[in-house]
C-alpha cells in the first residue's frame, strides 16, 4: 500500500483529498501545517507528499526545503497545491525540487491520476 501525506490548513479540502486517496488504496497521513508535516515525516516515509503553499507557521516552500535536506526522504515525490497561479510562483515551487505544481482549484480525479503517474 502506497503512503501519502496531505499537508493543508483548509479542513474541507483535506477531507475531500483524504476520502479520495483512501478510496484509491492509499494510506493517508494528514498535517495541518508544515511543522506538523515534518513531525510526521520523522516517523513515516510516504511515497507522495501533497503540500499546500500558503500555510501558517512553516509554509510549503520552507517545508520542502527541510524535506530536501533529509536523506531518508530522497525518494518522496512532492506535489505543491496552491492558489498562487503566477508563473513565478510555479517556477519557484519547481525550482525547489517539487515534482509537480497543481493550481487550485483542481480536479480531484486528475490529481489522483497524476499521483499514480508519479509513483510508477
Amino acid at each position, binding site marked *: 500500500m502506497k503512503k501519502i501525506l496531505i499537508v493543508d490548513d*483548509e479542513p474541507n479540502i483535506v477531507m475531500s483529498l483524504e476520502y479520495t486517496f483512501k478510496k484509491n488504496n492509499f494510506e493517508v497521513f494528514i498535517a495541518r501545517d508544515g511543522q506538523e508535516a515534518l513531525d510526521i515525516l520523522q516517523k513515516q516515509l510516504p511515497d507522495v507528499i501533497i503540500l499546500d503553499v500558503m*500555510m501558517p*507557521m512553516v*509554509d510549503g516552500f520552507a517545508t520542502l526545503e527541510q524535506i530536501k535536506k533529509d536523506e531518508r526522504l530522497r525518494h518522496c515525490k512532492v506535489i505543491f497545491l496552491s492558489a498562487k497561479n503566477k508563473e513565478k510562483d510555479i517556477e519557484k515551487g519547481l525550482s525547489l525540487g517539487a515534482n509537480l505544481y497543481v493550481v487550485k482549484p483542481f480536479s*480531484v480525479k486528475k490529481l489522483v491520476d497524476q499521483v499514480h503517474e508519479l509513483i510508477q
Partner: protein
Amino acid sequence: MNSIGLLLILVLYLSILFYIAYWSEKRSHSKWTNNPYIYSFSLAVYCTAWTYYGSIGVAAESGLSYLPIYLGPILIIPTWMIILKKIIRISRVNKISSIADFISLRYGNSRFLGALVTTICIVGILPYISLQLKSISDTFHIVTKTQASSNIFTDTTTYVCIALALFASYYGTKYVDASEKRRGIVTAVAMESILKLVFFLIVGIYVTYFVFDGFDDIYQKAAVLKDFDKKNTIGGITNGINWFFLCILSMFAIFLLPRQFQTAIVENNKETHIRTAIWLFPLYLLLFNLFVFPIAWGGNILFEGKGHNSDTYSLLIPQFFDNNVLTVMVFLGGFSAAISMIIVSSIALATMLSNNLLIPYGFIGSLENSSQKKNSKRIVNSRKIGIFSLIILAYAIYRIFILDYSLVSIGLVSFVVIAQLAPSFFGALFWKRGSKYGAVTGIILGFLTCFYTLLIPYAIGITKSTSLFIQEGPWGIELLKPFQLFGLDYLEPIPHAVFWSLLINILSYAAVSVSFKGNYRERNYAEMFVDIDKYITNHENAFVWKGTAYISDIQKVLQRFLGEERTKRALTIFNLKYNIDKDITTADARFIKFAENLLTGHIGTASAKILISSVVKEDKISLPEVLRILEESKENIIINKKLTDTSNELKKISEQLKNANQELVNKDIQKDEFLDTVTHELRTPITAIRAASEILHDDDDIPEELRKQFLQNIISESDRLNRLIDKILDLEKFETGKQKIYLSKNNITRTIKNTLDSLQQLVKNKKITIEFKDASKEIKAFYDEERIVQVIHNLVSNAIKFCSETDGKIVISIAENKDNIEVKIHNNGKGIKKEDFEAIFDKFYQSRNQNVKKPIGSGLGLAICKQIIEHHKGKIWAEDNVVEGATLIFTLPNYNTAENS
C-alpha cells in the same frame, strides 16, 4: 596702603586680565567668548573713569546734571535693532574696521575724508585718554596717601602706561586684517566691565547702608546742606534745554566714539547679540547710576568744608573709615574702567591712523612692490607703533598740561568734538544725496565752531580763568563771545557748543550736498549703504564699475597682502559664489569690489581703492549712467530672485509630481497585492467546493453520512465565499467614500450590551468569561449604531478567537473625557507583536503574515473596523505595554463635541 603693596596688587590684577585675554584669544571660537553677554558687557567700555569717579563729582557739585550722559544712550538704544543692525551689516559686507573707514567709504573711498575723520578722532580722544591716565595716577596717590611725583621714572603711571601700551599693541594687532575679531581684548574688556560695576555697587551699598542708614538717611542729612535744593532740580526751561543738548550729545557718542564703534560694530560677530545688548546695556547703565547720588551726597555730608576733590569720594569714604580692602577694590574698579577705555580707544585710533592716514598718505607706495610677509609685518608694526605712541602721547599730554580740569569737562569736550561726525555718519545711513564735499565742509566748519566756542576758551582757561576773550568777545564784539555766540546766552558752554557746532555742521553738510553733486562712486555707495538690506547677500552686484582689468593683475596685488594661499582661496570662493568660470581672465565690477573688500581690512578703504585702481584701467561713468546701472542691477536682483523663486517652485512641483507618481506606483503595487490576495482567498473555498462536488458527482457509493458531510462543506464554503465578497465590497465602499455613515444619538453602553448578547452563542462553546466593566455607566455619543455594532462584534470575536484557550478572559471597559469616548477590549491571549501594531489593520494582514496561526476569518475585519471608526472621526489602535494579552482601543468623538461641531 603703601605704594609697593598697591603696585604688587596692580601687577597681579593686570596679569589676571592679560591672562583672560590670552585664554580667550586661544578659545576664540568657544561659546565663552562668543556670546551676547560678552558683547553687551564689552559695550560698557562706555563707562570710563569719568563715569566711575566723575559722575560722583558732578553729582556732588551740581546735582542731577550727571544724568543726561546716561539718559541719551538709554533713550537711543531701542533703535539699535534697526540702526545698529544696519551699520553692522554695512560694515560686515564692506570689511569696515573703523568709523573713519565707514565715512570714507560711503563718500566714495575718499582718502581725504578718512584722514579728516581720523584727525578729528585723535584730537577728540587723545586728551580723553590722558584723562584716564590722570585718574589712575590721582587715585593711586590717594590710596597710597603719597604725592604725585614730578620725576617720570618714579611715577607709577609711567609704568602702568608702558604695560598697557605693550598689552594693547600685542593683542590689538594680532591680525593684519583689522576687521578681524579680537576676542581676547573683547573678553578682557567685558570682564573689566563686570568688575567695575560690581566694585561700584559694593561701595555704593557700603556707603548707603553701612556708613549711612539707607537712602532716606542720606537725603535727610544732605537736605540741610547749602544749595541742596538748587542743585537737585532740573531748573526750568533753560536748564531743560541744556539737558536736551547733553542727551543728544551722548546719543551721538554711543554711536560715534571710536571705542564704541570698535566694540559694537567691528567686534560684533552675530547680529542677534544686539537683542541682548538692547536690554542688558541700559540695565548696566541704570545700575551704575543707582548709587552715584548717595555716594556723592554722602561724601558732601562727611567732608563738608574740607576741600576734597569730590570726584574721589568713592575712595575717600572707605578710606576715611579705614576700610583698606574696599578702598583697593574701588581703586581697581576705577583702574579697570580707565584701562579698558585706553586699550580699546588706542586700538581703534591706531587702526584709523594706519589705515586712513599713514598708509594712504605715507607708505602706500612702498607697499606696492614688496612681498606679503614684509607688507603684513610693516602694517602690523605701524599699528603697534601707533598704539604705543598714542598711549605715550596721551601720557605726555597728561604730564605736560597737568590737566586740572575735572573728569567730566574734558570728557564732554571730547564728546562734542566727536559729535561733529554725526551729520555725515547718520547721513550715510539714511540720505542718498549726502556728498563728500558736504561731509567735508560740515565736519570742518563744525569742528571750527567747536574749536572757537569750546577748545580756545578751555585752553585759555587753563591759565587765565577770567579772560577778556570770554568775558567780552574778541575785539570787544559782544556777538562773538565764545560762550554766548550771537547772543545765545542761556545755554551752558557745552550745550552751547553742541548747538552751534552741530547746527552749522548739519546746515553746511546739507547745503553743500544739495548744491554740488557727488561723483558716481559716492552715489554708488550711497545706494549700497542706505539700501543695505537689498544688497546684503550679493553686495558685489551693486557695485558699478566700467573699464578694463585683468584678474591676474589684481591677483598679484592681493597676493602682496594676503599671500598666495589666501588669495587663491578667496578667488575660488568668489568664483563659486557667482558661478564664474575660473578660466576667465578679465575682471568685472563684482571682482573689483571683491578685491577692494579683501584689501580694506588690511590697509583701509581709500588705499584699497588706490591700489586696485593702479592696476586697472577705469572708464569714466556719468552719474545718470550709474543710476541707470544701479536701477538695472536692482531689477536684475529682483528678476534673479523671481527666477530663483520660479525655479524653486518648479523644483517643488516636480518633487510633488514625483511623490504623487511614487504614490500611484505604490498604490498600484498595493492594488495588485490586494487582487492577488483576494484571488487566493476566493480560490480557497472554491477549491473545497469543487473537490466536494467532484466527489459527489463521480462517486455513487459514498456512505450517506459522508455524502451529507460533503454537502454541508459545500454549503459552509459557499457561505464563506459570500461573506468574503460582502466584506470586500463593504471595504471598497468605505475606501471609495461611497459608504455613508448615519449618525444618531446613541448609548454606547447599550450598544455594547446588545452586541455581547448576539455573541453569547460563540462564547458558550469555549471556556471564556467576558467582563463588561462600567456596564452601569451611561455614555452617549453620536454614531451609526449598525456600524459600531459591526466594529464591536468584530473586535470581540477577534478577542474570543485569540483568547487563552484554557482560561479565556475578555474585559471590556468604557471611558469618557472632554473630547472622546473610549472603548477598550482586552483579551488574555498571546498578544500582538509591537511591530504588528499598525499592520493588523491592513487588509488580509493575517493571511499575508505566515507566522500567525491561521484563524477563521476573512482578514478584512480590522481593516473595515478602521474604516468605520475613521469615518466617525475616531481612532483605533492596539495599546502598547499591555502586560498580558492584547488590548484594542477605539475612540469616538464625544457627544457634546460632536453636537457643537
